[in-house]
């Protein structure tokens, strides 16, 4: 066996000179011996190789194109065995590269390894750094999720800033005037083809040149020399091993790289931020009043200075200036990054600051957008589980989903008056009523969370709550007959046990009109027990609701109808046109400030709002079960 191997090695060596090559590679002399601080270069090479390997395997499942990009990444992340780990390593290792690069650079500068005759190699290193940043930028867009889409959009908008050729440059980068298939195919080709190929070429030159100059610099070291093999190799390998362990650790702890909700060009994402290592640039943009200065001139000057460092080093104090500049640059980067994070997280970092503070408001806006983005992602995961991703892409699923579209429309059009929040205050905040006082011109409207449910009606008919901000408190109806009735007549009536039981029956009867999905069993039980029947009698009888409200056969029309109250039809009418004959149409000016949305919203959007308010699609499992029962029943 040994003989065969020996023969094979000799045979190969005779023809290739592999022995000499290995000897040259491994028996490089290191003046002063191996050191831990020499490992950063090897670690960077290892990180890049990891990116190549994981990237190629990701490529095997990735599909560039606006319908497929997000879907294929979703598939990698959630369906493909081990895909989350693969993508996670690719994602975190990229960040590790960005962190390691300045460390490597700092070491090179401090060790004066950028001085003559190594200027060109230093420049090659800078080029490698720019390529790495380019890889980070192009890779961020590829999942085609909200954060990547909007963050990259900002970056490509900036591409139009340079004078003369700016507009054309942007068009070339984006692949047309708008974001689309070609933006993805171009970014993908850059990310997986052009930039890595450039990287390999420049890296090869970088290493070759490094070998040519040898490792030595003027060494005042008294330690003996060593060969590269085995001690330095071992140190390099251990460094790489620790890096890999850290990266895998982060990936496992975080459950893989984050994927946002699919990109939606018409749905702005207010939490769009570049990857954290670009945050300093993002923050710097806020400091300069001209984007051209912030995004082009200043970074351009910094990079120019970096390129000039080896030249400056000839000057007596040049080296010290360079070190000072590097330290200053890294400090500034750190401070800017911190500032960006602080602004975004101000509300959580300084919880004692009053909410009226603009910094808190800005931060809450960011955090809220982030949270709702997260919710949309969780929601679409659920949608995919039940419906699959159609050929039109994931946006189609969202556009037909009330739980996604409802809140979007509500935020845009309804939330200026209405809130939609549960008892804990979670949900969509309506207008801020902190400074609203009774008697002020009305600026609010009822909180619609759980509208027409038993709980919602209980509070509406609660003398203590009917005039609160969650109901009519901030509307003109606070002086209307309903509030007068609930606070005036009703308390006497519901004082005793019988009165309370009657109120419960009335609430059940009104609420059953809505036919809410959440109350199907409750409605059936109350129907069975006769509670609904009793409630209906009371509405027209002792409670006298039908003095104003139409109910069943009693057509009155002095207030919105209770027939089908909270049902899909009722809500559709209310949103389309509150002055509908059965709603506020009974009298000119009866409607407070509710606009008719039939002009503003499409029928589909109104439908989405209605179904969301009713919670029809909230629980897809339940919806499916109810549908199947309905099919079986007749």
């Amino acid at each position, binding site marked *: 066996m040994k003989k065969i191997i020996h023969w094979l090695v000799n045979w190969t060596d005779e023809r290739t000179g592999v022995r000499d090559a290995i000897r040259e590679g491994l028996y490089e002399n*290191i003046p002063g011996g191996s050191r831990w601080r020499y490992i950063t270069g090897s670690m960077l090479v290892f990180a890049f190789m990891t990116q190549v390997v994981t990237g190629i395997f990701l490529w095997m499942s990735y599909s560039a194109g606006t319908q497929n990009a997000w879907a294929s990444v979703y598939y990698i992340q959630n369906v493909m065995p081990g895909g989350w780990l693969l993508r996670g390593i690719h994602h975190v290792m990229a960040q590790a590269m960005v962190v390691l690069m300045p460390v490597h650079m700092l070491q090179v500068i401090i060790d004066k390894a950028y001085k003559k005759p190594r200027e060109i190699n230093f420049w090659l290193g800078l080029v490698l750094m720019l390529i790495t940043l380019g890889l980070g930028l192009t890779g961020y867009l590829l999942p085609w999720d909200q954060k990547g889409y909007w963050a990259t959009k900002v970056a490509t908008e900036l591409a139009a800033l340079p004078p003369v050729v700016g507009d054309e440059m942007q068009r070339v980068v984006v692949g047309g005037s708008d974001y689309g298939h070609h933006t993805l195919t171009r970014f993908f080709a850059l990310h997986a083809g052009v930039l890595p190929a450039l990287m390999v070429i420049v890296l090869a030159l970088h290493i070759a040149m490094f070998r040519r100059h040898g490792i030595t*610099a003027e060494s005042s070291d008294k330690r003996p020399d060593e060969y590269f093999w085995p001690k330095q190799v071992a140190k390099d390998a251990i460094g790489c091993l620790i890096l890999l362990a850290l990266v895998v650790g982060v990936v496992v702890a975080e459950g893989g790289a984050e994927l946002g909700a699919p990109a939606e060009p018409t749905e702005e994402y207010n939490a769009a931020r570049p990857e954290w290592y670009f945050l300093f640039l993002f923050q710097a943009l806020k400091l300069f009043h001209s984007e051209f200065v912030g995004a082009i001139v200043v970074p351009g000057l910094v990079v120019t200075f970096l390129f000039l460092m080896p030249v400056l080093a000839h000057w007596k104090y040049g080296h010290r200036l360079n070190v000072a500049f590097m330290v200053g640059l890294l400090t500034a980067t750190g401070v800017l990054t911190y500032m960006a994070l602080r602004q975004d997280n101000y509300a959580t970092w300084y919880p004692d600051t009053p909410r009226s503070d603009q910094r808190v408001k800005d931060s809450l806006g960011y955090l809220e957008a982030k949270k709702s983005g997260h919710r949309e992602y969780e929601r679409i995961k659920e949608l995919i589980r039940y419906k699959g991703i159609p050929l039109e892409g994931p946006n189609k699923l969202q556009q037909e989903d009330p739980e996604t579209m409802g809140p979007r429309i509500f935020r845009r059009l309804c939330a200026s008056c209405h809130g939609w929040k549960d008892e804990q205050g979670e949900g969509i905040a309506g207008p801020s009523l902190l400074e609203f006082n009774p008697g002020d011109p009305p600026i609010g409207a009822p909180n619609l969370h759980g509208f027409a449910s038993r709980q919602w009606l209980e509070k509406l008919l609660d003398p203590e709550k009917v005039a609160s901000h969650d109901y009519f408190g901030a509307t003109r109806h606070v002086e209307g007959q309903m509030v007068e009735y609930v606070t005036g007549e009703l308390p006497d009536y519901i004082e005793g046990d019988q009165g309370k039981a009657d109120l419960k029956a009335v609430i059940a009867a009104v609420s059953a009109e809505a036919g809410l999905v959440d109350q199907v069993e409750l409605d059936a039980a109350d129907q069975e027990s006769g509670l609904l029947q009793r409630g209906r009698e009371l509405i027209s009888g002792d409670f006298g609701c039908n003095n104003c409200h139409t109910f069943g056969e009693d057509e009155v029309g002095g207030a919105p109808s209770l027939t089908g109250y909270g049902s899909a039809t009722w809500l559709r009418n209310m949103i389309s046109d509150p002055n509908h004959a059965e709603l506020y149409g009974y009298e000119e000016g009866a409607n407070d400030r509710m606009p008719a949305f039939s002009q503003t919203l499409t029928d589909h959007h109104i439908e989405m709002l209605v179904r969301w308010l009713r919670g029809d699609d909230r629980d897809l499992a339940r919806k499916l079960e109810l549908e199947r029962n309905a099919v079986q029943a007749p």
Partner: protein
Amino acid sequence: MVDEPTDPVPVNKQEASENEVAQQQPPSSPGDAVKSVEPQAGARRNFFWALLAIVAGGIVGIVPLAIGLYTFLVGPFQKKQTPLNYESEGDQGAASNEYFVAPLGAIPEDGMPRRFEIVADRVDAWSFIPGQAIGAIFLSRQKAEPGQSEVVAFHATCPHAGCTVAFNVDTDAFLCPCHNSSFGKDGKKMDLSGRSNPSPRGLDKLEVNQDKLARDGEVWVKYLNYYTGRKDMKPKI
């Protein structure tokens, strides 16, 4: 990689001398240097470092590749997941592989085969495409003896190399356009003059649901794809 050192570090004398011993003999070949475990402390230390380098280097080299290979190799063997809303839509679907093809009346009475498409919900990696044509079959009537189906169904895929056969009226046979395989109306291999017949087996006969045929006059076929190029019918599941 390694860069130039500048700042001196105090050196342990003994360690230094050990290293010198190790370094004093520039190896004639790398292999010798690694292998020669001489009873010297320096060589032993070198061996330790070499081992460390190989183990750590091996791990960092293999792990990313192994994870990538795992995703690449295991994924294709994973069972496809049909969305829950479509999972139990009657008998139509992936669960039973049985699909409605046509009413009996759509098949010519004279025994001439007719081509039909199988329409089914299709899961294609991340996409879900309901009601898509997923393949084709030939249906024909035959004079049924007791216990035999009145309708026969053949997969339209040639068992030789997967091209799609067509029925040729002139020769009264299924002909494959790729490598000249020919099959009779009964699906069996057939020798036509001037055509060699490389197919390893006759056309793949598919199971027709006899209950539904007798009861509703509907043709339901158990549609599966089979591996080509072999004598036996092995379904691709």
